[in-house]
């Protein structure tokens, strides 16, 4: 394509951010607040806070087929339809329109729209600790994290104070406390289990989930109305998303240009400066190709797409993909497993109930391998997430026999108390768990399809067995009856915590990014989505992505000010 000098100037910004999800929204906001003219590129459509949440206020009976997906949905979206329902479908891509290749079953759940998956995220916010940052070096696995907790702690605070996180301080070194709004409350059965843990289990405690749901008004949003319909988008702004928070804040500076329908196909390399000069995009609607230029570039396209973009950006300098001297890009793909756990019923406490639909459950922080040599047959650990409730019609419909008057009475009355809980477990970084590009198969914009080859391995499988064992024993000790363990054996990707395809590290020979998420091979490129993760820990990762992003933005700003960038 030919660009005149004039278009070139029009298409030049101080900063470009690729992707408007949870980390891209943060990058855009931080850069705009620092005075950079910023272009935010999003491959999907725009989604305006509140105005574009069409199902947010619907009642169950407003849906034609209840919350069942149609046969056509199941056929067209074999992966996404596992995750969406008619209330949330519009925040997921169509698999038919956006195909990818699974060498082994892998659920790549995606939301191509402004706000990305921040609209439908689980909102859990847990800090990582030095137990996590030191794990690789101690175990001799992969490479060492180039940062420690003290590097990130102030940035965790920075992010929490902005997004609003409710939670309870517990003073655990391996799960550091944060800046919390008042905690949500445990219900009767959850308190009962918490008490039992205190009494019966050494080293374990149960606390309310730490979530980006507002227990009081915050930053002109909220509070949370306890509807538990977050993933339809919240008309009260009761939870944090790019759409409700960072993007409006970036817009308010006057420095943001948001360009939806912009599929970034290549990062452009400039020989003389050894930097990225900008990006090439395809307009998803018109199919026209454009180039945009900037001093710095933040890539926040999400773990798998970011790696795909880099691998697709080849030049004589980078024949194997942009910034890929280490040949690590696309490798070390991780996702938490969350398949194993236990379920039990409790036949007491029938006088108690609850009112409202609290949008979160409880957390039993990691208690395995906190010390060395615990004698377990797996490395690292897991936290347990779960919730307690009384059986209602959705549970009773499968467990009650009969029909008629008495049946109806039972079906519509609160049943036994139950607890469901499962382990969210760390996944080790394996070089062979990877994404590559298949140049023989293209999408409708002529871009190569991404191929994903991922499996959980021995360490994860052994950990799942331990999760079943510990979950069941905690329930049994608390007097639960009919305790059943389960392992759903969900495909990789199902926890939607993909990480690791462009990892941070000290050494440019073995890692892609340095300790400020800056590319070793191209100093004006920063990657602060999940691909930067050197190990996965067992904490839900979004809070860490946001903290890394804010920290990298400050670093880029200081470098530019000094003239080093």
């Amino acid at each position, binding site marked *: 394509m030919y660009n005149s000098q004039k278009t070139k100037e029009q298409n030049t910004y101080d900063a470009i951010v690729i992707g408007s999800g949870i980390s891209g929204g943060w990058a855009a906001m931080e850069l705009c607040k620092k005075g950079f003219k910023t272009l935010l590129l999003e491959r999907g459509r725009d989604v305006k806070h509140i105005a574009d949440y069409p199902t947010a206020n619907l009642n169950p009976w407003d849906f034609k087929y*209840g919350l069942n997906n149609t*046969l056509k949905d199941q056929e067209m979206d074999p992966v996404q339809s596992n995750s969406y329902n008619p209330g949330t479908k519009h925040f997921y891509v169509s698999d038919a329109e956006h195909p990818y290749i699974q060498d082994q079953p892998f659920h790549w759940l995606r939301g191509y729209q402004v706000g990305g998956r921040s609209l439908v995220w689980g909102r859990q916010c847990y800090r990582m600790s030095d137990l996590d940052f030191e794990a690789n070096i101690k175990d001799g696995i992969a490479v060492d994290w180039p940062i420690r907790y003290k590097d990130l702690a102030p940035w965790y605070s920075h992010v929490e104070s902005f997004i609003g996180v409710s939670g309870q301080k517990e003073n655990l070194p391996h799960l550091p406390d944060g800046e919390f709004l008042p905690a*949500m409350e445990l219900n*009767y059965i959850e308190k009962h289990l918490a008490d039992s843990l205190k009494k019966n289990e050494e080293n374990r405690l149960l606390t309310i989930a730490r979530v980006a749901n507002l227990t009081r008004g915050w930053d002109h949003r909220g509070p949370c109305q*306890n509807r*538990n319909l977050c993933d339809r988008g919240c008309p009260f702004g009761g939870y944090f998303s790019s759409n409700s928070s960072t993007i409006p804040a970036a817009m308010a500076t006057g420095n943001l240009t948001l360009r939806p329908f912009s599929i970034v196909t290549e990062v452009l390399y400039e020989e003389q400066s050894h930097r990225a000069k900008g990006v090439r995009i395809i307009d998803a609607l018109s199919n026209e190709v454009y180039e945009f230029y900037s001093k710095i570039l933040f890539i926040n396209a999400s773990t798998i797409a970011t790696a795909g973009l880099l691998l697709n950006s080849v030049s004589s300098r980078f024949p194997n993909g942009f910034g890929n001297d280490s040949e690590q890009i696309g490798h070390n793909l991780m996702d938490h497993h969350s398949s194993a756990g236990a379920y039990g019923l409790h036949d007491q406490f029938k006088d108690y109930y609850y009112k*409202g*639909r609290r949008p979160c459950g409880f957390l039993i922080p990691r208690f395995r391998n906190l010390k060395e040599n615990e004698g377990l047959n797996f490395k690292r650990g897991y936290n347990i997430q779960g919730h307690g409730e009384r059986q209602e019609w959705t549970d009773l419909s499968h467990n009650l026999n009969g029909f008629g008057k008495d*049946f*109806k009475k039972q079906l519509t009355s609160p049943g036994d108390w139950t607890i469901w809980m499962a382990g969210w477990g760390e996944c080790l970084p394996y070089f062979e768990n990877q994404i590559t590009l298949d140049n023989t198969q293209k999408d409708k914009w002529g871009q190569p399809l991404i191929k994903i080859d991922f499996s959980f391995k021995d360490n994860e499988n052994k950990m799942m067995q331990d999760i079943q064992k510990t979950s069941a024993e905690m329930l049994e000790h608390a007097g639960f009856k009919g305790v059943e363990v389960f392992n759903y054996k969900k495909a990789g990707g199902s926890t939607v915590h993909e990480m690791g395809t462009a990892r941070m590290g000290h050494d440019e020979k073995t890692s892609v990014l340095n300790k400020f998420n800056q590319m070793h091979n191209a100093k004006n490129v920063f990657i602060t989505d999940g691909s930067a993760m050197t190990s996965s820990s067992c904490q839900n990762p979004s809070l860490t992505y946001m903290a890394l992003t804010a920290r990298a933005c400050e670093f880029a700003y200081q470098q530019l000010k000094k003239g080093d960038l």
Partner: protein
Amino acid sequence: MNRRSYLKRIVVFGAVGVSSFSIFKWTELTRKVDPATLWSKKDMIAELAEIIIPETETPGAKSANVADYIVKVLLNCMDIKKQNKFCAGLDRVESYALDNYGKPFMNCTANEKQAVFEYIASHSGFSYRILNRINKKIFGESFYLTLRDLTIEGYCMSKPGATQGLAYDYIPGNFEACTILKPNQKSWATK
């Protein structure tokens, strides 16, 4: 008999069952269901649903228009095998009524309808859970269970069902973690 050999026997038994199953019946299970046929049986479905969830001091399945929901969901969301089994189940209801009472189901008295339904309910599966599972996997969910599940779902998600049969709290506002259950308190309609 240890568990393993027990399971083996079940699997062999299941396999024999499959091989004796005629190709003819298989095609019957996988052919397309004519929506008009199913819609024409809406009144009968409504009658059956009302037996599961009758009108009491709160609305029943009929007032909640559950039959409409069942047919819509079956035709648009459930796989073909389930649809066919459902149609076959309705035929079975009809022929049982004809054989035993000499009249179509819809013309039966309330007591007769109840008896037909009880027969269908008690002949809906094997007494071993694992056989039901194998059966379900190969031939689809039984008519009775599909009818029951969709009736419950259709009722509890309908406006009369959710707001009168159950307790519907559209915008709770606050969360009360521990309340004292009142006598006859209904359970919440949504989670």
